[in-house]
């Protein structure tokens, strides 16, 4: 099958498939579960077919011209293939996990529809090479995110869902204005035609607002901890694997792959994102709600990915790309462990929990492993990504920024170990057995993957290297 067809299928199978889930739901619960897992599996498998193509470093364009310069164009290059593999794989795991998690909730049809639409539009966004269609998929994800956060339909949950939707919509609308400014300057929305053009400072600011709203960096980040009210699988999908990676991917695709930033931005950005990640780490240390801590932790780790990209050194870029993979696995693991704990104890405050390691050994070990990977301690994958990001920042001459980033890493270690000791160690407040085997299996798998991605880091690194060389058009 040629490359273009696979890319189109990766985008449209989940998007159109998700619309048929309510029909499957009409037939029976099992039919719907099987159908959604099948769709998830296909979406996860298809990008893998593109792997050999991506590893060769080549780039292919699938295009269907429409009017007004808005032609639907897909770009298949190492960066997009890497992102699609990471997102669809973790998304698939989360679908499997959620079979157990929301087995006895209402609105399950809508849940699976929205999750698959979410993953499908993520694929669309990752492959699209036209600014407007990138925005279209960006907003579809916003809608799915809004419906998923408000899944339990409680009064304040829906308020928080609206807040999240409004903040991301505001960011995205301003970003769209930025896109239109660029369109006004270059006359086209097509990325491949605009490689290397210098864009105006205001356009950069507007687009950054959109990215920061979606990837939760400093000024527009407070909706993510509030979105903790959603079911854990959604927060896992949202926070760890897919949603927060959108802004970062857009940064790579726009500000690295395509445009060049005015001078002032290049040294302002790293400082800004490091401060954002420090503040988020501080907030995570103070918080006591299990999922809010992990949400702030995500905001903090996203700061690292932005840091890696914004220093414009090859190490930084490959560090950040690796970070996306490692953080996706590890943070999804952390959230799903949190899901198992909350699902069993029905408590959200870590001070009320304790000694769960006796009754939940596998979850505890998995949580610890994923925590070590997020902190960036050696045998785990997170270590390599954090190392490359830090060395990339130092090579860009920003030694103080690297120092602050490392201080944030120490803070990360502190609050993650604090959470682990408070929840799993100490004297047991109640005996809560580990819930469904499927959920525990997924969590264990994620922990093992975090470890393997550390030991066998050479393999993902190959793809990351080709992606970095394909991104860099300027002489470093």
């Amino acid at each position, binding site marked *: 099958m040629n490359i273009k067809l696979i890319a189109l299928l990766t985008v449209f199978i989940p998007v159109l498939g998700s619309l048929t889930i309510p029909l499957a739901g009409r037939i029976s619960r099992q039919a719907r579960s099987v159908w959604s897992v099948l769709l998830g599996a296909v979406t996860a498998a298809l990008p893998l077919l593109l792997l050999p193509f991506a590893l060769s470093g080549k780039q292919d364009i699938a295009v269907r011209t429409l009017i007004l310069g808005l032609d639907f164009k897909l770009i298949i290059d190492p960066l997009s293939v890497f992102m699609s593999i990471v997102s669809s794989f973790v998304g698939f795991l989360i679908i499997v996990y959620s079979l157990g998690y929301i087995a006895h909730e209402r609105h399950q049809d809508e849940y699976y529809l929205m999750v698959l639409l979410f993953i499908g539009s993520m694929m669309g966004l990752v492959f699209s090479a036209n600014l407007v269609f990138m925005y279209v998929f960006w907003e579809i994800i916003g809608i799915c995110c809004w419906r998923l956060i408000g899944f339990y339909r409680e009064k304040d949950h829906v308020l928080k869902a609206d807040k999240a939707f409004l903040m991301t919509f505001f960011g995205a*609308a301003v970003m769209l204005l930025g896109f239109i400014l660029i*369109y006004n300057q270059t006359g086209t929305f097509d990325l491949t035609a605009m490689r290397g053009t210098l864009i105006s400072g205001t356009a950069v600011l507007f687009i950054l607002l959109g990215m920061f709203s979606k990837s939760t960096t400093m000024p527009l980040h407070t909706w993510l901890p509030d979105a903790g009210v959603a079911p854990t699988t959604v927060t896992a999908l949202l926070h760890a694997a897919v949603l927060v990676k959108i802004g970062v991917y857009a940064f790579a695709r726009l500000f690295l792959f395509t445009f060049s930033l005015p001078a002032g931005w290049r040294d302002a950005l790293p400082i800004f994102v490091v401060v954002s990640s420090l503040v988020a780490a501080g907030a995570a240390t103070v918080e006591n709600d299990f999922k809010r801590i992990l949400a702030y932790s995500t905001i903090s780790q996203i700061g690292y990915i932005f840091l890696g990209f914004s220093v414009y050194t090859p190490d930084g870029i490959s560090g950040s790309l690796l970070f996306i993979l490692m953080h996706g696995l590890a943070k999804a693991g952390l959230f799903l462990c949190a899901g198992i704990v909350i699902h069993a104890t029905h408590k959200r405050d870590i001070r009320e929990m304790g000694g769960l390691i006796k009754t939940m050994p596998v979850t505890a070990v998995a949580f610890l492993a994923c925590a070590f990977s997020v902190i960036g301690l050696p045998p785990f994958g997170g270590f390599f990504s954090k190392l490359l990001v830090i060395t990339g920042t130092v090579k860009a001459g920003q030694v103080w920024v690297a120092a602050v980033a490392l201080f944030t890493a120490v803070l990360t270690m502190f609050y993650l170990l604090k959470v682990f000791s408070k929840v799993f160690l100490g004297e047991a407040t109640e005996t809560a057995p580990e819930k469904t085997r499927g959920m525990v299996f997924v969590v264990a798998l994620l922990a093992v993957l975090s470890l393997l991605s550390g030991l066998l880091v050479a393999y993902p690194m190959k793809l990351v290297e080709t992606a970095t060389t394909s991104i860099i058009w300027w002489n470093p």
Partner: protein
Amino acid sequence: MIFLFIALPLVVAGILPLIGKISPRLLPDILANAVFAALLAIALFAGPSLIGQGAGLQPFMFLGEPLGIHLALDGFSLFMLAAISLVGLCIGLFSVDYMEHYGHKAAYYALLLIMFAGMNGLVLVTDFFQIYLFLEVAAIASYALVAYGLGHEELEASFKYLMLSAVSSAFIVISVTLLFGLTGSLDFGAVSQALRGLNQPLASGVCAALFIMGFGLKAALIPFHAWLPDAHPSAPAPISAALSGLLIKVSGIYALTRIFLKVFGLTPALSNILMILGAVSMVVAAFLALGQKDIKRMLAYSSISQVGYIVLGIGLGTPLGILGGLFHLLNHALAKSLLFLNSGSIQMAAGTRNLEEMNGLSKKMPVTAATTLVGSLSIAGVPPLNGFWSKLIIVVALVQAKRFGFALAAILASVLTLWYYLIIQRRAFFNKPDEKWRDVREAPFLMTTATVVLALLCIVIGIFFTATISTWIEPARDALAGGLQVIQSSIGIQ
């Protein structure tokens, strides 16, 4: 053939009360919807060929006497006719069930058809006085329809609507007479030629101001909008859908566009005025909508805000701006009538219009919940749906014309729009099912089909927006833009 658009509804309206005597409900339903369907068919299928042969002037023999009927059908009017009859058909279908308990359906259908005849007429004529006349036809029918519920609140609202519309019609007549005084004729082409001839800047300026005020009130732009938030909520749902979806667009925006682009010529001064009016309505109405408790009042304010978008687009004057404005006109017509029809089915099922009392309906009324979601997201301009593309084109046009302030206002207004539509979703549907709606059933069949048709249209146009633009909107824009270059050079008002 195009004369049918006016004659058919008028004739059927005439005979309806008699038929009403024979079978009070069944026959009028069928007849009215048949008329709408026929008009839609003509517009969709026969229309494009009709445009082909020029301005569609054809002598019409009546008892041997050649009647000087000048009906001009160009891309713009055909686009409007198609939109009117499309929304009209859905409203007709909706009214079959909804108007059951209002009684005397024949009179209702008669008035409805007359209103649509008035609108069709207004779209087709090329004579100032005839525009005023058909304006009055549609207006009088709508006064009666707004007050159709005969409740105290309905009467007061329709009285206010009548008095203010009467004032605006008066100003339109003054302006028409002034123009007749100045140019000696009432036909668009003749008047525009004459205006270019004599340089009377003050006179044509005053005429323009009076027209803006008159048609501005019909289109409910901000300083003149006050009647709309009272008229729409108290009108029965199909009527407020017709009013908000069509009447303010046809009698307001169509007339403004036709007059200013074809006759007066959109000079920079006029375009600035229109854009400022549009932008002010867009933002102020959005804030007003935020604070509403009653769903229909909120939707009414939202209409004012979206009309602001359309006027902003068309007022810009560049071909892309007009394209965006017209496309938004179509999208808003579909989505807003969908939302008003849904509010009608909510009111019929749950018996309330107040958002606070309305929570927990999604369990019992899933289809209405889904279609309302589609409608709200479409107007808020969230991508996959049609509203987004028109707003996008408008903002692109604004940015290309270096009007960054307006572009930013448009973006912020769309965020505000999303905000109050989320309030509707949160209050009405997106919450835990409430016990008090235990015995509430989904809206009857025909009503749901009407709303589902409109919702599907929103989605389909959203996805195949390029096809819609190239077949419907671009001919309309060319019809208008064609006239633009000619006028641009005329002296008129600088």
